[in-house]
């Protein structure tokens, strides 16, 4: 049996106990319900009067599908009072970036159109595999640095890519540090040369720009790995294969020093079904689930913050999101219909 306290109350308490943790992430393998949890958590916090932004950094984002509204690439959209949702369109961001480069070239050289050669280079640069991640990352930094919400909920990409994403901050930081050092050295030479010529040196705009990027990234990455401001919940389900993968995943996250705040167990079949006339597949799944729940308690026992029941249908639309929020945080306790 799951914990004797009412479902979800520990998770609700986590939020009241740690009011400073305003950056919320759900991690784990694909297909376990991360997006659903992100949406329901945003709904729960908004209903308690907070201003919340839930945003997706997954190129195959599903927030549009969950809220049943097309929000892809439209910036933050208010779904219900206080709940804003945003789906990042990396391609759009890349196109804007390309346009910026074109404009710079046109302004710099006074061309009326961009030479074909350069167009090719711009196209090639944008096809770099890292480009999409960079575009998304850049937008996330924007969102976090701009602020303006009480809570930020990241709907992370499936595990492997979440790790890239988390490692990105340090990668960027290192890269920028290297470039900045180089620029500073160059500037010293330039200043010397300028002094010898007796001229005033203009402020190095590029260096300033680089340092600005660096400042932004430092803000964003420090948030990601700062246990005082970030809550990172790991989503698991009581199935053997998923548990195997979770063990692998937890090790990977430890490598990136992502502090795990706790585990949320999703898709727990209501035990009351066992006393009813249920099909064989369900009876067997219930039996297996008991074993896996036992295993989960052994592995993560005290760190499980909520056992979330399996619903009788998938979670899309506000009515279902509300039920999910209730199941996760206690709410009015309307779980799935089991009678």
């Amino acid at each position, binding site marked *: 049996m799951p914990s004797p306290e009412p479902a979800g109350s520990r998770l609700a308490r986590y939020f009241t106990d740690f009011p400073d943790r305003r950056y919320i992430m759900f991690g784990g*393998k694909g297909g376990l319900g991360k997006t659903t949890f992100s949406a329901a958590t945003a709904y729960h916090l908004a209903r308690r009067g907070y201003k919340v932004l839930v945003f997706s950094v997954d190129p195959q984002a599903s927030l549009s599908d969950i809220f049943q509204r097309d929000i892809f690439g439209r910036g933050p959209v208010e779904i219900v009072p206080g709940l804003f949702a945003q789906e990042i369109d990396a391609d759009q961001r890349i196109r804007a970036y390309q346009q910026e480069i074109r404009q710079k070239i046109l302004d710099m050289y006074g061309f009326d159109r961009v030479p074909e050669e350069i167009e090719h280079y711009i196209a090639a640069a944008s096809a770099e595999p890292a480009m999409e991640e960079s575009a998304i990352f850049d937008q996330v930094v924007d969102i976090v640095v701009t602020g303006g919400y009480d809570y930020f909920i990241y709907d992370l990409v499936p595990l492997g*890519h979440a790790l890239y994403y988390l490692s990105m901050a340090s990668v960027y930081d290192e*890269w920028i540090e290297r470039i900045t050092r180089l620029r500073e050295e160059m500037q010293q030479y330039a200043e010397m040369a300028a002094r010898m010529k007796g001229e005033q040196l203009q402020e190095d705009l590029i260096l300033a720009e680089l340092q600005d990027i660096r400042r932004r990234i430092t803000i964003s990455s420090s948030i990601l790995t700062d246990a005082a401001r970030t809550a990172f919940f790991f989503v698991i389900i009581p199935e053997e294969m998923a548990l195997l993968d979770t063990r692998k995943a937890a090790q990977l996250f430890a490598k990136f020093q992502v502090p795990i705040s706790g585990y949320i167990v999703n898709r727990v079949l209501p035990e009351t079904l066992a006393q009813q006339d249920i099909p064989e597949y369900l009876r067997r799944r219930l039996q297996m689930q008991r074993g896996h729940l036992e295993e989960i308690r052994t592995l993560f026992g005290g760190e499980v913050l909520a056992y979330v029941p399996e619903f009788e249908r998938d979670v899309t639309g506000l009515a279902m999101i509300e039920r999910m929020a209730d199941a996760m945080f206690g709410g009015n306790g309307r779980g799935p219909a089991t009678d």
Partner: protein
Amino acid sequence: MVQQLTRPAGWEALVERSMRQVVDAMPTLKYLYFGGKGGVGKTVMAGAAALALARQGRRVLLVSTNPVHSLSGLLDQDVFGRATPVAGVPSLWAHEIDTRETIERSKREIKEKIDWFLKYAEIRTRADAFVESATMNPAFEESAMFESMIDIIFRDEYEVYVFDTAPTANARRLLGMSAVYAMWVQKMVRSREEARSLRRLLSYSKKDEADPLLDYLLRFRDRIEAARRLLTDSALTAFFFVTLPEALPIAVIRRFISWFHEFGIPVGGVIVNGVIERGLVTETTPQFVLNRVIAQEAYREEIARAFPGMVRAVVPLFETEVRGVPVLERVAQVLFA
């Protein structure tokens, strides 16, 4: 006791051309990819397809390109890092790609090339910093995965390859990139050739020297181009998308399919997984189960509208988790019904 499984009643109408018909009609089909949102059962379907094809007596390699692999879990044996014979199934091998080797090898190769280039350009700098920045980018592992996949394909040791792919848009991006890569390499090649002829003009010896960097670029371009040709050849390749009768997975593969059409990657069809049999519902079935069945049937209509004529199989929700070859056999029977 093992119940015999058939296609779930009421869902047959979705399947105009079955998986079996499509595969039988494509005797040259060699590369099968299984994709879709996380958690829909891609690994299980890829495993079942590989098993079915191996049972026809063909030499089959089942490959996982996921950053977090689950083939070893599915087959209940360790298949990480090398092609491993699957116990109890003659002519089937399984392989979870280990990108660490590829990444290390790429780093070494890049370092050699940069070293050579720096020497060539008479720059006295250590290559390490360049290598670090070239290989530390987050997409590097992704590219390494793609490289390893191409390696496996080009070694050509099997008759059929079945890929369990990552639940991301990377396949489309990497393939879409190959055209741009080719263009970029072409440019590099041109400028290298110019530099080379200039150097020849200026040098006394007039002898041709080797240019490993240029050779590498040309090799790379040819590899990517060859891979693109294979992956866009509808006689050789088919992508199958797995979905559940639920909103999110349907939405994801709808997007995927339109991307794939854009890049000319052949879509083999859609497999619907996790369907609860209507026949299991009786007078006394609890509301919980009944509601699930009703919700699924609403999505059946949506699948019919979204993927007309593309559904190849409907696979019921199994009463146990699918692990190990015996259960996989049963999935294969339904998949190739």
